[in-house]
């Protein structure tokens, strides 16, 4: 069996990435079913807004894990609902501050907030963090992700957020240091605004901003540590033997490497194998050959599994079991 698909250090996280329509969901479901049948308590989560995990498993899913078979649980995250909830939370926060920040007309800002770039990524990251935080309930968590672009940005977010948090912590620390220094020399300064008297915090432990910053950093660092740990996380790229999916996978591989996230396996789906020569498919077969060669060159050291184009659409438990066995390797239970 491919050991990077099995739990090693606590739970195992698998991200299945790839271009739209290459067979991510089928691959995810096959792996999840295969692992569940080998005795690992597995959760499969669909993050893709175009949900079809439920279609593949032939059950209706929602955001609570639902038991499918022994050891296999599945859920579909409703991204729209998540984004709405996330925005509601933001808006409440903003409105609380509104009365203080009367200079800027914030009402107008609320309206455009839901269209602001990046909202979807942040909401997805929050969702992933929530699941990972409770990761010890499972042996394996399989994420069926949205098409490559969004997934890569989401996976890059923890690192970027960490940089921001660190910079802000640095400035905050300087502010607090200076406040302490001034208080030492001149005594503590008291401010009075609209009749209310207060002091500004100067110790790290009493400063709510610093506390929040450190708390946030810890949360993001947790996700970053999980996704960059090769003993915990494996990314599996699914692609078809065509040039465009190949280029996309190659780019994904490069950017994952930049963020230290381990790509371990390439599932080459829908490989055409002909027993007789079909002249109409000659061009297609040649193209496929070329891609197969390119893959060997571009992804040295990365495992590749070839799944043939099946004579019928692989749906239903039997098919998933068969494909799962091919991807996991080793003996079938």
């Amino acid at each position, binding site marked *: 069996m491919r050991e990077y698909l099995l739990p090693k250090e606590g739970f195992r996280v698998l991200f299945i990435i790839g271009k739209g329509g290459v067979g991510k969901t089928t691959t995810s479901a096959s792996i999840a079913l295969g692992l569940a049948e080998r005795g690992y308590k597995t959760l499969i989560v669909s993050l893709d807004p175009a949900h079809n995990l439920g279609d593949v498993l032939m059950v209706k899913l929602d955001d609570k894990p639902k038991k499918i078979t022994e050891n296999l649980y599945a859920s579909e995250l409703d991204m729209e609902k998540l984004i709405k909830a996330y925005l509601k*939370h*933001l808006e409440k*926060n*903003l409105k*609380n*501050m509104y009365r*203080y*920040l009367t*200079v*800027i007309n914030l009402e107008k800002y609320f309206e455009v907030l839901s269209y*602001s770039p*990046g*909202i979807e990524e*942040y909401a997805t990251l*929050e969702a992933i963090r929530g699941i990972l935080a409770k990761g010890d309930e499972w042996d394996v968590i399989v994420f069926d992700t949205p098409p490559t672009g969004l997934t890569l940005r989401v996976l890059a*977010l923890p690192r*970027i*957020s960490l940089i*921001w*948090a660190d910079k*802000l912590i640095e*400035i*905050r620390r*300087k*502010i607090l240091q*200076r*406040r302490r*220094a*001034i208080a030492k*020399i*001149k005594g503590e300064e008291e*401010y009075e*605004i609209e009749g209310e008297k*207060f002091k*500004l915090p100067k110790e790290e432990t009493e400063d*709510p*901003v610093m506390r*929040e*910053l450190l708390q*946030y950093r810890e949360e993001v660092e947790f996700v970053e540590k999980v996704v960059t740990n090769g003993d915990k996380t494996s990314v599996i790229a699914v692609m078809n033997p065509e040039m465009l999916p190949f280029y996309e996978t190659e780019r994904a591989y490069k950017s994952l490497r930049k963020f230290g996230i381990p790509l371990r396996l390439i599932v080459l789906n829908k490989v055409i194998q002909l027993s007789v020569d079909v002249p109409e498919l000659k061009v297609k077969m040649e193209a496929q050959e070329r891609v197969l060669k390119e893959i060997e060159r571009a992804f040295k050291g990365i495992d590749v599994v070839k799944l043939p184009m099946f004579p019928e659409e692989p749906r239903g438990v039997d098919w998933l079991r068969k494909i799962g066995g091919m991807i996991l390797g080793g003996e079938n239970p």
Partner: protein
Amino acid sequence: MQKIKDFLKGFGEAFRHQSTEYIEFELRELENVFALILMGSFIGIPSPPTTLVMRLMPHMVKEIRVMESRAINLDDVFAEVAGMFDID
């Protein structure tokens, strides 16, 4: 003797005042930068992760009010800077 002591004490206090003057200026600037980064999207500079900003803002209210009152009382920024660096 007492006079010399008083003189030295006054000297020290002047130094102390001058030294905190720099730190205070630096503190104000740092506070401004911090708040500016958090609210960067209002003025068109890239902001930190939205989640982080939203979690920090409620705790920033008092500070922002202090800054607001400073901004109201501030009349000549350049004079302040010039004064600090002994430019007449």
